[in-house]
């Protein structure tokens, strides 16, 4: 199946049987009907005739060959018996036996001459036992020695025989020799009688068979080597081998000059008739073997009928080429086939005409149908006949009427259908628009997701940058400090820078941890009554260095009436601090930041406004998103992770409040408004003093004095802590005993007077929980020793766990000096508030 199947050429289509016109079909079938039997009969006759003719010809050739072979045999026998007469003549015998009668040689010679002339011998002669010619019909033969001539040797072996034709080198002619022994009176061989004849006699007999029956027959005579002994039409071809001789035989014949000067050329130049020699020998062995040979030679087939001769080991055959045999029958076959073809043509023509006549009304119907199909509904056949075709035409016309009616009806339907199609098209169009909207929405969501992903990537690079920036300053100043080449002022600046940067980093980490908690939902609040004024003040305290540095004017509008609230004081302070530091950050030097706490209806409002760069309107909706900064480029003017506002919103929402940002646009400042619900019942009194963890503040003087002279046992496996804290605390007059493990600590407790225990939680071997358990089980004063857990396990559950284990306070590493001192002071003074 190729492309032709898909797109058939029209001419090929027309060639399909089913597309033939009926006239052609009928003509073809009738023509076929006429030619097939005729052709079959003709070809069968030809085939049968061929085989018969070949068989008959072969048989005829065999008969003819037998006749001719018989004639040759008769001729040869005649020659031999004539010679025998010479050989057995008494005078011959007497002559060769050596009888010396004076007239004897002449008598013998005369009888030889007589025999020569009456029987067409070329020559007759007698040889002695040594093969020497002693008497001959021609004197020039006398004295020649034929000792190695086969015919003489054969006679000397006692045989009267004929030799194959052979070239006589002395007479330079081909002769056939007959020879017979001449015996003496005692039967002893005294010599040989030899007679030679030319080959014309045989050639004549063979010649008679040439084309004897007009089928290009040719008679061939050959010996048991396959060497042709007679060629009736071309004497030079005598001695041509019918089949190549074995090399050794050919060489021997050549060496013996058997067939004259051209021996080698002759015996090697023959055509190739394989099997002929082998068959010849078997025929000589057994006359009953198959006398026929079919030879394929040079593209021709030749039929040979072979007959062995009786008097000599030769064969005679008549060869006929097959095409000549079949010539007559082939001509007849051609004639018959031509006749069959003509008959078929005639039949086809007649059938074609008849079919045209029969199918003409049908064609009329066809034309009408085509017109109908083309839309001419008025066309009718209109044949007035009563036969089958007439009936068909009438039926067709009726059908055409019916079709016209149906067509009108259909047209009505078509109009209705058109309307329906239009409606459907409109509906389709509508649903298309819907789909487009959905698609747009999906695109938008997709863009948002991609944006979030991008934001996250930007955030990560920001985190990396923000974490490294302070480290850079810390490392630089640390190196300067350790070099010992700084003056007093440099020293102070260095320490301040290190402190600031360390704190900034700490803040970043805190923010990250908070965001992490927010994301994982692990942020818990410790709700208690709070004084918002105190919270705001504490936040302002901790931000004051930055405020001072930028010379920003802070305006407080704090309504004490609105101060009382309920919430997690630490987180509330974080909210305020974040909003403030945000404001400070985005407010240019000398700008103004206003913080206000007020009550409105049932809500407490904390409002932070600045005169800073403001917020672009399109970013206003995103200021509380995590990881979002209006300017996320690496060259942005303002550092920070951009987490603060996200934490703010989350913490506010945890407190059940809301936060919103407003801005008049870029350069017009921004306002952040936190609304917290006012609790139904707020405790009237709040603790007046409390240790509020906040960064960067100097230790309150009150706390500093409270810790003076305190004996503190510090347990930490980390050597830096054990080294650093005693130095720090010693500035406040605190004496610190350091222990690196729980066992060491217990030992110190036993031997020293300890007022307070500050212990790490995570330690190799025995941890802080175990230590406090053991301390609490001690008798006496040590059993109730105030204890602070100072640990990097900073999460709320860790804090709860530490308090449950027996610590009074839980401080997260890293700890600010003022925080630690305040805590020490609080515990030393016996105050036991949970933080």
């Amino acid at each position, binding site marked *: 199946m190729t492309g032709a199947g898909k797109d058939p050429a029209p001419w090929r289509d027309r060639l399909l049987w089913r597309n033939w016109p009926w006239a052609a079909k009928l003509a073809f079938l009738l023509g076929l009907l006429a030619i097939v039997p005729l052709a079959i009969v003709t070809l069968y006759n030809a085939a049968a005739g061929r*085989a018969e003719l070949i*068989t008959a010809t072969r048989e005829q050739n065999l008969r003819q060959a037998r006749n001719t072979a018989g004639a040759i045999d008769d001729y040869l026998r005649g020659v031999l018996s004539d010679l025998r007469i010479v050989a057995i003549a008494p005078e011959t015998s007497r002559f060769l036996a050596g009888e010396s009668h004076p007239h004897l040689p002449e008598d013998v010679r005369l009888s030889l001459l007589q025999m020569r002339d009456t029987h067409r011998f070329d020559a007759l002669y007698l040889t*002695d*036992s*040594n*093969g020497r010619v002693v008497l001959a019909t021609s004197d020039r033969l006398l004295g020649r*020695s034929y*000792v*190695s001539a*086969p015919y003489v*040797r*054969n006679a*000397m*072996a*006692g*045989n009267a025989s004929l030799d194959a034709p052979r070239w006589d080198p002395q007479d330079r002619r081909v002769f056939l020799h007959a020879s017979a*022994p001449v*015996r*003496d009176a*005692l*039967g*002893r*061989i*005294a010599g040989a009688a030899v007679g030679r004849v030319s080959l014309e006699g045989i050639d004549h007999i063979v010649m008679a068979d040439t084309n004897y029956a007009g089928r290009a027959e040719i008679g061939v005579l050959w010996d*048991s*080597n396959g060497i042709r002994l007679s060629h009736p039409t071309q004497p030079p071809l005598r001695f041509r081998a019918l089949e190549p001789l*074995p090399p*050794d*035989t050919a*060489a*021997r014949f*050549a*060496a*013996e000059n058997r067939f004259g000067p051209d021996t080698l050329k002759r015996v090697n130049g023959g055509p190739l008739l394989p099997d002929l020699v082998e068959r010849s*020998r*078997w025929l*000589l*062995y*057994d006359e*009953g*073997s*198959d006398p*026929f040979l079919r030879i394929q030679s040079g593209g021709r087939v030749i039929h040979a009928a072979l007959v062995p001769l009786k008097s000599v*080991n030769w064969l005679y055959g008549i060869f006929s080429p097959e095409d000549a045999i079949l010539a007559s029958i082939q001509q007849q076959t051609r004639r018959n086939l031509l006749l069959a073809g003509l008959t078929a043509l005639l039949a086809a023509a007649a059938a074609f005409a008849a079919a045209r006549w029969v199918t003409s009304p049908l064609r009329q119907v066809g034309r009408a149908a085509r017109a109908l199909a083309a839309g001419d509904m008025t066309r009718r056949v209109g044949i007035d006949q009563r036969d089958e075709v007439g009936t068909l035409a009438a039926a067709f016309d009726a059908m055409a009427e019916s079709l016209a009616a149906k067509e009108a009806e259909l047209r009505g339907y078509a109009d209705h259908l058109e309307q329906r199609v239009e409606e459907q098209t409109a509906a389709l169009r509508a649903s298309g628009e819907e789909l487009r909207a959905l698609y747009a929405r999906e695109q938008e969501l997709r863009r948002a997701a991609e944006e979030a992903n991008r934001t996250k990537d930007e955030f990560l690079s920001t985190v990396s940058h923000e974490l490294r920036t302070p480290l850079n300053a810390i490392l630089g100043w640390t190196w300067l400090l350790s070099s010992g080449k700084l003056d007093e002022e440099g020293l102070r600046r260095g320490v301040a820078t290190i402190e600031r940067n360390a704190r900034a980093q700490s803040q970043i980490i805190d923010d990250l941890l908070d965001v992490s908690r927010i994301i994982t939902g692990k942020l818990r609040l410790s709700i208690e009554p709070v004084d918002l004024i105190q919270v705001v003040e504490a936040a302002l305290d901790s931000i004051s260095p930055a405020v001072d540095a930028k010379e920003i004017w802070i305006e407080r509008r704090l309504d004490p009436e609105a101060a009382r609230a309920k919430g997690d004081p630490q987180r509330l302070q974080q909210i305020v601090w974040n909003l403030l530091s945000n404001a400070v950050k985005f407010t240019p030097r000398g700008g103004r930041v206003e913080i206000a706490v007020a009550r409105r209806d049932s809500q407490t409002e904390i409002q932070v406004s600045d005169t800073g760069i403001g917020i672009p309107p399109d970013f206003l909706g995103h200021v509380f998103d995590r990881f979002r900064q209006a300017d996320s480029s690496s060259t942005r003017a303002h550092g920070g992770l951009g987490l603060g506002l996200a934490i703010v919103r989350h913490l506010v929402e945890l407190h059940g409040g809301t936060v919103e940002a407003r801005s008049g646009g870029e350069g017009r400042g921004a306002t952040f408004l936190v609304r917290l619900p006012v609790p139904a019942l707020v405790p009237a009194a709040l603790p007046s003093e409390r240790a509020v963890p906040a960064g960067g503040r100097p230790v309150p003087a009150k706390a500093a004095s409270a810790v003076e002279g305190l004996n503190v046992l510090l347990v930490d496996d980390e050597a830096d802590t054990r080294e650093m804290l005693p130095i720090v605390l010693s500035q406040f007059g605190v004496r610190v005993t350091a222990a690196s493990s729980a066992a060491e600590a217990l030992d110190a407790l036993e031997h020293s007077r300890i007022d307070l225990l500050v212990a790490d939680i995570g330690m190799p071997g025995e941890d802080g929980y175990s230590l406090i358990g053991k301390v609490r089980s001690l008798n006496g004063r040590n059993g109730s020793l105030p204890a602070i857990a100072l640990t990097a396990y900073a999460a709320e559950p860790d804090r709860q766990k530490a308090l449950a284990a027996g610590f009074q306070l839980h401080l997260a590493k890293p700890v600010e000096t003022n925080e630690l001192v305040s805590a020490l002071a609080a515990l030393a003074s016996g105050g036991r508030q949970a933080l």
Partner: protein
Amino acid sequence: MSSGAPFPAGREYIAPVGMLVPGSLRTAALLAALLLLWTACGRRSPSALEAKGGGGELRVVLPAEPTELDPNSSRDEIAHLLAPSLYSRLLMLDADSRLHPDLAESWEVSQGGLLYTFHLRHGVRWHDGHPFEAADVRWTLEQLAKHPAFAAEAVRRIDWVETPDEHTVIVHLREPWAPFLSTLAGFGTFILPRPSEGARWPAGAPPVGTGPFRFAEWVPGRRIVLAANRSFFRPGPFLDRVVYTFEPDPNRGPGLLTTGQADYLVQRPSLALLPRLARDPRLRVLTSPSDGRYYLAFNLRRRPFDDPRVREAFNRALDRPALLEHALYGYGAPGFGFYTPAVAWAYDPAARAPGLDRARARALLDAAGFRPDAEGVRLKLVLSCAPIAPYWEIAEVVAKQLRTVGISVHLEQITGRQWMERVLQRHDFELTLIGGNHGPDPENLNLRFGSRGTTQIMGYTNAQLDAALSEGARTVDLARRARAYFQAQEILAHDLPIAPLAEGVQITIYRRGVTGLPRAEARGLVPEYDFSLVRARGGAQNRGGGR
């Protein structure tokens, strides 16, 4: 015709079929059957050549009982008469010296006559059923090298034998050697089965060959029987059996034929009987020129033959035509030359022994110091000869003729076996007669006159002759070979190590009714003594009571 058709006649066998089928089918069946008959008649069977056996029994009379059946040994000539029946060669020579394929289907000669490649026939089996293979050929050639005999000159020139597959034998010669193929087709080169799977060829075991007949029975002193080998690879054998009997007296042979006790004589009666035998309607006598010839061999190692004058005197004392007439009854030709005219291309008619001249003979003997005594005897010598026709007759005539020049020859009658042992092997003789075939290749001269020749018993050496003979064998060009052999014959005519006596004839005598003998109807198809195409019809009637 009936042999080709499945039914004796068509009608009877078609009729019953016709009763069972409807008319139209019957016609069709008739047509088909006729067609079948027609085609069956059209192809004539190629005669009964394919049939094996059924051709009766051939009773062959041997002149002596063989001592063994080793076809390649030179110890026993009688064994050679049986060899072509039991064994095959790679190729064979017919009576007209034409080479034919035998175990080798075809062969090629290449590399200037150094490489002979034989393609062996497929499907040939030994009489014991083992397949015939190239390894057998190689083994045989190796054995021939170990035990030099007739083919020694050929085997000596074999460098090595290669058998690339089971049906190919490649023989590498050390030097080109023209008579190689005809030697392989001659005597002493029958292919024997190589021993395998233990001893297949132990001493005393029945011989195994690939020939047309297999060994059946040997009753010592009475007969050897061979039976048809039905799986013979060539046409035939048509005989069922060949029975060999032994009759040392050659003149009793024809009687055995005429009385119906035998069919074929290997030995030949006196030629004097031939004309009479030829007239006997119960017999057929075939005579034909042969390449056999007879000569008188001198023992050159001994006085007086070390003297060339004596040898010339002997040659001049002999009247050869008379010898032919009296000893051979004219059959053949007087022997003047030194090679057989049967091989015409190699026969030098000019190289002739000195003709009859008794006066000169006497003078030569005088000169050599052999003067006649009171009885006219100059020399007394012994001629050792077996009493076999025509040797004994020749010996008698030779003795008589030599007496005319004063050489008294005592005829010593020895058996063929004694001749082999004493004369051929020990060279213990003064004068002896040698005959035998000289063809098909003039290399035969080397065997007879070469200094290493196996039948060169004279003690004659001539380097020039050896050179000429080896030159004749080295080239394949017949003209050059002929020149070399002509030269050899001239040297022999000069040196006269022998006195040539006569050219022989081949005589075959058999009972009328026997057909297909190698020199009769089967001429050109089989080698001498090959009975594969022989049929012996009528033998049984004769035996039953023909008289």
